């Protein structure tokens, strides 16, 4: 594949590009699903293509194609040059990239069992079994189970001399039951929502998740939610964990710390950020026990790789340290704008057809000293435990948010009293993180995948992980209702 890359390098060098690169990507995706005893979804997909990026006269151009021939590489490279020349007609300053050594390397996601060697029929057997076990109650109107596997093989060459080959692998699965009774519709998923748990692992993840072993409990909870009381309204303590806390981290810290957003480059679509650069090193983002660390080397992390799509080697750094805003997600274009001599390496593209943009890395809430989940509940006078995200919304500067969860439990005087349905909470980001008074210890620390993070125009999807232990937030507005 690097032979095709040299064709692009020749074109870009001959046009005296400041910088240029080509990424050839071969992607294999297998998505399988069942619903109510029938096949819900089945697609085994393979794509191959390349994208050429050029910085010429300080302005960017990018073009891509799914036709991998030398002639097409040449045509697309010249189109990228033409686009860069058009970009140069509307610029105020020349783009200058943060320096990065030229790397020659091969990197691969570690795994035990290659999911693409596991027969499809075996995967379907597991899914149909989970589906069957969820449909024992007539109130379950929809039972569904799914698996998804992605292998992305990349070849990245830059005019600076980097030649990086990477093979990134992820696996994911879930099962989900929807119970309906009159005006009530309640859903419950295992192990979490939004397509389930996805991690940079092989089929061993599916074995560990054991969907059939959790299917009956999942369905039983969906049915129980139909008769559960509504989540009470008011201000009380919130205990959250799992993929809900992961999404809280993702939306209110991850996106807020993307430097392109902070500098206004996403203003037209996803929005900007309240965490502006003059706050770096000073702004109290959360209570002193809040430490959020970005880490492209985290084992199992969906954003874990040897290098990002700027060709920057994987790093680990604080976004929030002891409650203070301490860093950003950066690419090579914007890192110099905040005085960094090197990008943190958080620039990625969705497949071959998209330009690399600043992305959330794996971003995790470090464990605290509150012991186990049981210890946390015991020390809570009145609060709600919320699990598994159901709905999410946050304003365009990442301040005002509202989340809804699948299930809640009311805690009174240190004990879990009862299940509640339709739990929701609202908050303002720094106030919310400032109210964090307890984080469980390392024994409860788990990694959760976000496999569908959308950003950019044209729209791109990226994957990352957020690890955390259960945490408690004081005086949160819960039980938000429509009028």
């Amino acid at each position: 594949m690097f032979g095709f890359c040299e064709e692009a390098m020749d074109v870009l060098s001959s046009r005296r590009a400041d910088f240029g690169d080509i990424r050839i990507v071969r992607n294999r995706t297998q998505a399988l699903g069942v619903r109510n005893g029938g096949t819900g979804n089945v697609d085994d997909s393979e794509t191959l293509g390349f994208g050429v990026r050029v910085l010429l006269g300080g302005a960017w151009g990018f073009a891509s194609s799914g036709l991998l021939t030398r002639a097409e590489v040449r045509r697309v490279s010249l189109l990228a040059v033409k686009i860069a020349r058009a970009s140069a007609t509307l610029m105020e300053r020349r783009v200058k990239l943060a320096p990065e050594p030229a790397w020659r390397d091969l990197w691969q996601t570690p795994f035990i069992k290659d999911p693409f060697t596991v027969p499809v029929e075996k995967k379907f057997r597991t899914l149909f079994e989970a589906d069957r076990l969820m449909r024992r109650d007539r109130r379950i109107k929809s039972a569904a189970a799914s698996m998804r596997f992605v292998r992305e093989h990349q070849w990245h060459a830059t005019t600076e001399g980097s030649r990086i080959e990477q093979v990134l692998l992820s696996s994911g699965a879930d099962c989900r039951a929807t119970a309906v009774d009159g005006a009530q519709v309640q859903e419950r998923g295992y192990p979490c929502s939004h397509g389930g748990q996805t991690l940079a692992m092989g089929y061993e993840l599916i074995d560990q998740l054991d969907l059939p072993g959790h299917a009956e409990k999942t369905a039983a909870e969906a049915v129980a939610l139909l008769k559960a009381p509504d989540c009470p309204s008011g201000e009380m303590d919130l205990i959250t964990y799992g993929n809900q806390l992961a999404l809280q981290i993702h939306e209110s810290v991850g996106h807020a710390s993307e430097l392109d957003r902070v500098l206004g480059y996403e203003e037209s679509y996803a929005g900007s950020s309240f965490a502006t650069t003059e706050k770096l090193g000073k702004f109290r983002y959360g209570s002193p026990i809040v430490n959020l660390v970005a880490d492209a080397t985290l084992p199992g992390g969906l954003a874990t790789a040897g290098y990002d799509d700027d060709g920057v080697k994987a790093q680990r750094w604080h976004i929030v340290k002891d409650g203070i805003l301490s860093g950003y997600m950066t690419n090579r274009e914007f890192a110099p704008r905040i005085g960094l001599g090197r990008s943190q390496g958080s620039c990625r593209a969705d497949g071959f057809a998209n330009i690399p943009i600043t992305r959330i890395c794996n971003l995790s809430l470090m464990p605290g000293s509150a012991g186990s989940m049981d210890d946390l509940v015991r020390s809570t006078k009145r609060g709600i435990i919320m699990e598994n995200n159901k709905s999410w919304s946050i304003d365009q500067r990442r301040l005002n948010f509202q989340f809804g969860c699948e299930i809640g439990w009311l805690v009174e005087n240190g004990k879990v009293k009862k299940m509640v349905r339709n739990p929701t909470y609202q908050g303002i980001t720094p106030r919310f993180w400032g109210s964090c008074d307890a984080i469980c210890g390392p024994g409860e620390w788990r990694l959760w995948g976000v496999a569908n993070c959308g950003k950019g125009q044209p729209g791109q999807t990226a994957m990352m992980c957020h690890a955390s232990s259960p945490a408690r937030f004081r005086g949160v507005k819960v039980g938000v209702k429509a009028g």
Partner: protein
Amino acid sequence: MTDQKKLCAEIFRLAGRVRAEVIMESSESALTRFADNVISQNVAETSTRVSIRFTDKGRVFRTSLNQTGGAALADAVRRGLAALKLQKKEKGLLSPPAPRPVGPAAARLYAPGTASLEPSFRAEKAADLARLCRARGMKCYGTVENGASRLTVANNSGVFASHRETWALYSVTARKGEGYGWAEQYSPDASKIDYAGVNARAMEKAAASVRPVPVPPGKYTVILEPAAVGDMLLFLGYSGLGGRAWLDGRSFASGALGKRLLHPSITVTDDALAGPAAGAPFDLEGMPRKRVVLIDKGVARAVVHDRRTAAEAGVPSTGHSLPQPNSCGPMPLNLEMAPGDSSLEEMIRSTRRGILVTTFHYTNLLRPKTVEMTGMTRNGTFLVENGRVTKALRNLRFTQSVVEAFGNVEALSRERELMNGWGRMCVPAMKIRDFNFSSATGF
């Protein structure tokens, strides 16, 4: 564009006696993105994607690829056929359908000049706006986009349906200090886009919203511009007007067809054939799309179906299939809300105290049965007092049932706007009483 008919024939030859269906999409697209008064991203993409569904004796498997050359295609078909043999047999599994006549698409959906616009065209449009913004102490953000695509659905039982269209989109966010304004226009024909008009609308709103003030959350009369109405209709459509959700009892219309659920001024139609939100005249099994009146003067009349949900419901398919098999069921993708007899200006004039909303941001569904949603206001939120816009407001979060809101309609505008996103929609502006804002934000 790839020669799609020839490619389909090759796939059917490779499939042999197995029933095979091909969904093929080819496109060429370009997007120039600007931020802070400069071009920030500038991209072009050429793509082809082929997805093949094999069915045989109650078994199904799908394989997809983007390489249409001999070896890659043959490998994909071989792999798909091998996997097909190992699938579980399903009773009642539908094979790809026999052909049915598909009407012509609306002719205005393809404009040859729009497909081939140069990067310099898009850069000039961005530069024109940046000049205006600099002169007014503003910053601009947005996109200039154009492209062309062809969609073909074919099977080896004789279905062959193909549709091509072009698109152009111009989207502008203008900022002046803390004031934001937004305007956007979509058209199949780039020459029909009023670039100057979009610029003027976005800049005017930004200038008018420079010093936003807070108002307490609570219930207000709202005047929603079409983009905000479209956001609500989108959720009503995907969560409640598809056959699968309706059959499962998850839809607001489940068990309620024939009943008045919304205000009598609300009529919603899905029309891919001739309406303002027209698109491909066939669904993703190649079946003809029908015009379906979903809500008629507030009364729930129908939901859309594919062959699978139609069979379960005992009604004919309306031609709204997504790729089969799927879990989510059929979806309305060409929604049109009938106009009213008012205008945005008249709605403002008739309002003693209310809030004018330009767009919503980051909306999401909370409860499907009432289509309860949450989201933020964005890009220009204004207080209306005694028939006039008096102040710019800081943004608010709403938590509101769409069914209830569409029951509290006081006026709809004659003018409608066309939007392209998750499907296509054409909607008016709307005035609604007792709209619930649940909290505020700091800007």
